[in-house]
């Protein structure tokens, strides 16, 4: 199932989407497939799998540390693609990574290899729409969704440009800053949701860690919530990881389900 089909299915049921993020290879490459399955059992509708980069400037300490653990454990793009290929779940998988890893592999080859291993979409936090033409072309060629971010600082003119180029869903950054959990859902989220007018599903990320926040975001008009650091924190704790991932995914999905999208 690809990303538009997934959102279509959810929309027909009046459900918002739970998009869960993990850094692949954290703490070891062997652990990732089991974690993804736990997230899906808990109710994740889409799973973003981070391909760790040595210099993750758009990420906060939580995901930076996860990237470090994964890289130390031997993660690299080849291993990543093997892991993705080995994951047997019926939800779309999205690759999130930094542009240098794509560039170095060769842009078209990277997209081709992603598709071969079962990736449906790509998110590149350090690739603004202005620099994305080559990747965009390859993604279209192979039927992969290229997902762009929109921030509270993004101007109306840029929002339009991003919406013209993006597909799958748009990733709304709920606040200024890097990834990481926060206790409040900022007012800027609501404002941003009303500023972005599009038929492409809108998913909100950065700082969401519990069911109430997830419900608030869907209430505010989002089609989905993206949760990363809260899951990565569980992995970092190292205790009952699989069970806790499933429990948190369920709590978040319940939050999402408490509101009719």
């Amino acid at each position, binding site marked *: 199932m690809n990303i538009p089909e997934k959102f279509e299915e959810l929309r027909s049921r009046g459900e918002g989407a739970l998009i869960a993020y993990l850094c692949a290879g954290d703490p070891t490459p062997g652990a990732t497939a089991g974690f993804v399955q736990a997230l899906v059992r808990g109710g994740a509708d889409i799973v973003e799998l981070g391909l760790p980069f040595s210099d993750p400037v*758009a990420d906060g300490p939580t995901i930076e540390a996860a990237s470090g653990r994964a890289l130390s454990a031997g993660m690299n793009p080849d291993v990543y693609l093997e892991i993705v290929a080995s994951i047997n779940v019926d939800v779309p998988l999205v690759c999130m990574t930094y*542009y*240098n890893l794509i560039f170095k*592999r060769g842009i078209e080859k990277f997209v081709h290899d992603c598709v071969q291993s079962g990736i449906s979409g790509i998110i590149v*936090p350090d690739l603004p729409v202005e620099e994305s033409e080559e990747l965009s072309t390859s993604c279209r060629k192979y039927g992969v969704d290229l997902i762009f971010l929109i*921030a509270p600082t993004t*101007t109306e003119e840029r929002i339009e440009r991003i919406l013209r180029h993006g597909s799958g869903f748009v990733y709304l*950054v709920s606040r200024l800053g890097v990834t990481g959990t926060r206790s409040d859902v900022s007012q800027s989220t609501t404002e941003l949701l009303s500023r972005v007018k599009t038929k492409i599903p809108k998913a909100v990320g950065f700082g969401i860690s519990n069911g109430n926040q997830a419900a608030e975001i869907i209430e505010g008009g989002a089609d989905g919530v993206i949760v990363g650091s809260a899951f990565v924190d569980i992995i970092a704790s190292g205790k009952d990881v699989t069970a806790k991932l499933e429990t948190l995914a369920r709590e978040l999905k319940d939050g999402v389900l408490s509101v009719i999208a």
Partner: protein
Amino acid sequence: MSRTTYGKYGKYGGQFSPEVLMPALAELEEGYEKYKDEPEFLKELNYYLKDFAGRETPLYFAKRLSKKYGTRIYLKREDLVHGGAHKLNNTIGQAILAKYMGKTRLVAETGAGQHGTATAMVGANLGLETVVYMGAKDVERQRMNVYRMELMGTVVNPVESGSKTLKDAINEAMRDWVTNVVNTHYLIGSVVGPHPYPMIVRDFQSVIGREVKEQIMEKEGRYPDSIVACTGGGSNAMGIFYPFVEEKDVKLFAVEAGGSGLKTTEKAALHSASLCTGEEGILHGAHTRVLQDKYGQILESSSISAGLDYAGVGPELAYLAEICRLTPCNVSDDEALAAFHELCRMEGIIPALESSHALAYIKKAAESGELGELVVINLSGRGDKDLETVIKLNKEVHR
């Protein structure tokens, strides 16, 4: 205004930056275009360059060095700029620009601590809150600069992630900027990062090359055969090269840190020579030449000098190397150290270890004669900050 070029130098440069920062980069570009030629702005800039920084700096004829190497050698004395390095040329410019743009807070990264110090100076002087990120490893090896920054009211945050050096400090400074972009200017210290930074830093540093043009004409009645500058990120190099780029008879040499040899292990390079050995890649917002592994993971770099210890290089330098307008070269830690001592003893000037790399190339090139008969070396900083490092190395040698 139209923003169609996005700061490309050939295929290099660009804006590979998180979406949150794109509007800030546009605002910075617009602010720069608006103020850079405005008489009021220029008046303030020139006032600070003259009365605060102490410009112009001398172009000094190094008599004994010239005699030894059989060529006329001039040193552009950026070591005499307030703070002890060329870094202040850029921080003055950007801090005044930030003030004009209504920003109240500066963040900066620093490697050797020279850029951090230069930022602390303008921050204190202009009354702007200043926060500097510095790799924990660099904090250790440059303690005096940390103390200097703190004396001037700057908060120095040691960065414990990654290799704990300059690239990690840049990551952290960018994160701060992403979070506080509304009131904060990111005062980047070299000709690196997303457009418009490589252009802005180059322009503010070009005062070096412009002065050299006039001074060498006055002293020698002609332009030099070659200009030599050390290159990490490359701000002193772009600063002295840029006004000469169109003067095709003037050869430009970018001397990188060869460290302990041009080799790499799995995760680290034993050097910082990204122009000489790096491959195309995207680092810190720009398409440039980067030290990386086969997958594109950035390698830790290495050098005796913290200011050259960087895995990337300014995109315009990558471009000038690609079109063969400049010659990338490198000297080892040992060669740089020998040149450091040579300048101390022969000219009574203690150079920074960064600048010692440029000096070391005179010896290396002496045999081939490729530098010609009239050479200008950018003496980008003074070596007081490096004494601890040098003392430690000498002890190791004499043990």
